[in-house]
């Protein structure tokens, strides 16, 4: 009765270099995955049509001289989009976002919004600010009206600008709108953009 296989599994030690290779391999794969996700995210964020589609999923809007999408993020329940006018540098910048209140503590939300706005809208330095009640989507809501300067990059000269900040919280969802206009007729342009806003939800 020949025993055709041995029942002994030999002990092979695991060498340090082997562990290092495994670690390197794992890091390589995780890195690849993260790079892939980051690339995907950036590609999605920087796709103009996608940014416009995201913005339009939140509000209908009109930008004088035409609009182009700059950045859009649709990650789960979080939607952020930045739209500008077609001029260079843009004289109208529209930021819209929708975030669930419970899932997004104020600090995080402000930081993310501010960061994205800073990147894509330029730095806005307010000089004065007031609250005005305005009609949006059939309801009167408080709007923070700010006058100040908009800086597109460090070398460029700051230009006078106006900003409207609107926050609508409803049913656990917070919607933010930020409109910045600069140059001549900045006030007219910002009013036109604000008046063109149509909610894609029941406020």
């Amino acid at each position, binding site marked *: *009765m*020949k*025993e*055709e*296989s*041995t*029942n*002994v*599994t*030999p*002990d*092979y*030690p*695991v060498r340090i270099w*082997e*562990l290092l*290779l*495994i670690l390197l*391999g*794992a890091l390589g*794969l995780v890195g*690849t*995955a993260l790079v*892939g*996700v980051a690339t*995907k*995210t950036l590609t*999605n964020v920087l796709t103009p049509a*996608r940014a416009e*589609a*995201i913005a*339009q*999923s939140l509000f209908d809007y009109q930008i004088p001289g035409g609009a182009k999408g700059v950045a*859009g993020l*649709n*990650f*789960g*329940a979080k*939607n952020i989009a930045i739209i500008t006018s077609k001029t260079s540098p843009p004289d109208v910048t529209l930021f819209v976002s929708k975030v669930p209140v419970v899932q997004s503590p104020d600090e995080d939300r402000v930081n993310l919004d501010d960061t994205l706005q800073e990147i894509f809208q330029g730095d806005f330095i307010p000089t004065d600010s007031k609250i005005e009640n305005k009609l949006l989507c059939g309801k009167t809501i408080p709007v923070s009206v700010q006058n100040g300067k908009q800086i597109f990059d460090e070398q460029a000269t700051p230009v006078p600008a106006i900003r409207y900040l609107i926050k609508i919280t409803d049913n656990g969802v917070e919607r933010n709108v930020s409109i910045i206009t600069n140059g001549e007729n900045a006030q007219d342009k910002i009013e036109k953009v604000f008046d063109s806003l149509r909610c*894609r939800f029941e406020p």
Partner: protein
Amino acid sequence: MDNYLQPQGLTEEEAIKRRAEGLGNNVFLQTSRSYRQIINENIFNFINIVFFAISAVMILLRRYSDAFLVVVIISSGVIIAVCQEIWAKRKLDEIALLNRPHTTVIREGNKRDIDPTEIVQGDIIVLAAGDQILVDGVVVGDGRIDVDESLLTGESDLISKVAQDNVYSGTICVNGAACFEATKVGTETVAYKLMTGARAFRHVYTPLQQEINLIIRILLLLACYLWILVGISFTSRSYTLADIVQHAAVVAGLVPSGLLIAITLAYGTAAVRMLGQDVLIQQANAVESLSHVNILCLDKTGTLTSNQIELQKVFPIGISENELRQKLGDYVANTTAPNRTSEAIESSFIGNKRSTKAEIPFSSARKWSAITFDDEPHGTFILGAPEILATVAPLPESINNYIQENFERGLRVLLFAYTENLDVINEEPEKIALPSTLTPLGVIVFSDKLRAQASETLHSFTKAGIDLKIISGDNPDTVAALAKQAGLREDINVVSGLELAIMDDSQFATAAKTSTVFGRITPEQKARLVQTLRLQGNYVAMIGDGVNDVLSLKQASLAISMESGSKATRSVADIILLKDSFAALPFAFLEGQRIRNGIRDSLALFIVRVFCVALLIFSTGMVANSFPLLNKHSALLAMFGVGLPTAVFPIWAKPGETTKHSSMVRSLMHFTIPATLTMTLVALLVFLLYLVRAVLDLPPGQNINDVDYTLPRTALVSILVLCHLFLLPFLKPPTRLWVAAEPLSNDWRYTIAASILFVVYMLVLTLPPFRRFFELAVLSWQDCLFLVLVAFEWCFILRAVWRSKFFNRFLGVDLS
């Protein structure tokens, strides 16, 4: 000696007429599982019914492809199994039909051997020691038989039967000879269900079967628990009914019902394979059962020896040799219960028909037989074991020495004795006793040759770590001498039945454990020895041939009989060695090991898959608030990861002991725990990565509840299939590179099979019709490469975990 054959029996015309009147013994002789059993057990088991119910709901939900998948893909394994089992059954039935016992009837005054189904009511049936009684009837004529009715009544005492006494089907004629008239045949018999043989009463599950049954039941409980959760989720979550049915189907896939199919298939193929070795399998699990055996009990005569008993010499005491020859010749010529010993004497000495007053047939329990002649020279003659007769027939020292010398040469010795008293024999079984004094007439010496290859066969069992116990009714010294001739070591412990009889339970158990040769053992002692060895936790096989072995065969974990053995012995046996092929047993043992190893390999993959999917169900529920797989994905994983590989395991498996644990699941823990946990973690990370991608790709205006899970699920099922395929070379390492949890096999077939399955899976993933059918997303070549690299990385991690014995250290136990 044919004085009990007085009846003339029926004529052939009467037999034909009675059969036409429906009085024939038309009972189906079941030699293996019936078609109905095969279909019922393979198709209509609980888990398949669940699958069929799910497919019915899917049809109602118009998910026809899902229903098709359940019915065709999952059932195809069942259909293949049913077809193979029916094929094996037909083969076995064919051979069993050729080998099943015939019965002897008297028709028109002549004895005829006929098939049991040809018996008709009113037939006169001849019974001899060792015959199984197949129909109910009444004893007729002068014969006397002792019947074992334990299969009907549970009482082990023999019941004496003479004219007008009833005999019942399913019982066994142990001693004597007689005729009986069949009064009830076919389904009218008291125990017609026993017609298929006493083995119908023996249904011993092997440890492997018990363990697999336990695993399946535990997983069934787990599935029930998950079904309840799935049911609750229908009310608490936004799942549709279609989702719920999908989830229920995935949970149903956790129950490894395929394991039972794998076992049945392995048993069937093994049984057919064994036919080529002249081994007839009567109990499906017998071959696998043999591989568990750690104690093998053998009868000497007819098992270890060829049962071709030859009279060597006679040694007269106080009479001439011629006188002794004449008396012995008369004795055997007038016995109504001939056996091998009397036949050996009859072939040498011619005797005369005489007038017998009484007769006590030979019994293994008494160890002697007797006949009283009332014609001249009258007297009572007794033939039996010297140790038994010597108590009433004192022998001179020289004769005792002569007997002992022959015992030690492995020869069989009987003493022939005499008393003038005609009334010393009482034929009532409970009153049978030796006369108070006897005059010894002579010593008769027989030889019985060892079977060819007995020595090699015993040696191979010893080498495989199986303890041998030779249990015989013969003198212990004779048995010991033959055992040594057969190659057993010189220092074997010998114990006799007479010594065992005065031992208490504790001493008996010790003797059973420590002794190798047991001589002068009664059938009851033989059965008790086997029972004691089993109670000590041993898995005991018993090989026997005579009717005196039936009791012990019934007690054994595995009963093996010689083809030349009595009909009763063959009927209780799980394995019959055709052509008395004792040497085929080691092959059967290796075949049993092969089955176990094949099942073990299958079980390893089943455990990893089932627990990996179960853990993923919980993990994705907690981490991503979702369900990981669709029914089709689960089927795909079951097919590529487990189903197809395990289909070839029983065929490719090799013999050899691979586990040191009695529990197979325990022996696999060192393999399955690291594999399951690491695979689950890797699969979960891959799922989450692709889920993030799916979320990033969400169309504007849609939220996370609208995520399309096709991509993450495709990635998940792909990584699971890849990891399962990579498990194959770890399970059967072709080179040192893959040796971590299992020993080197040098067998490339498993790795090649994994590679082929890998290519086939990639085709399924690439070809649109298959991809659409299985609801898989398109994976780019970069994604495929990434998943393959992840699977490779997992292989190296797993190998390091196995080789470093990480879980052994962490858990503080040796899992290997």
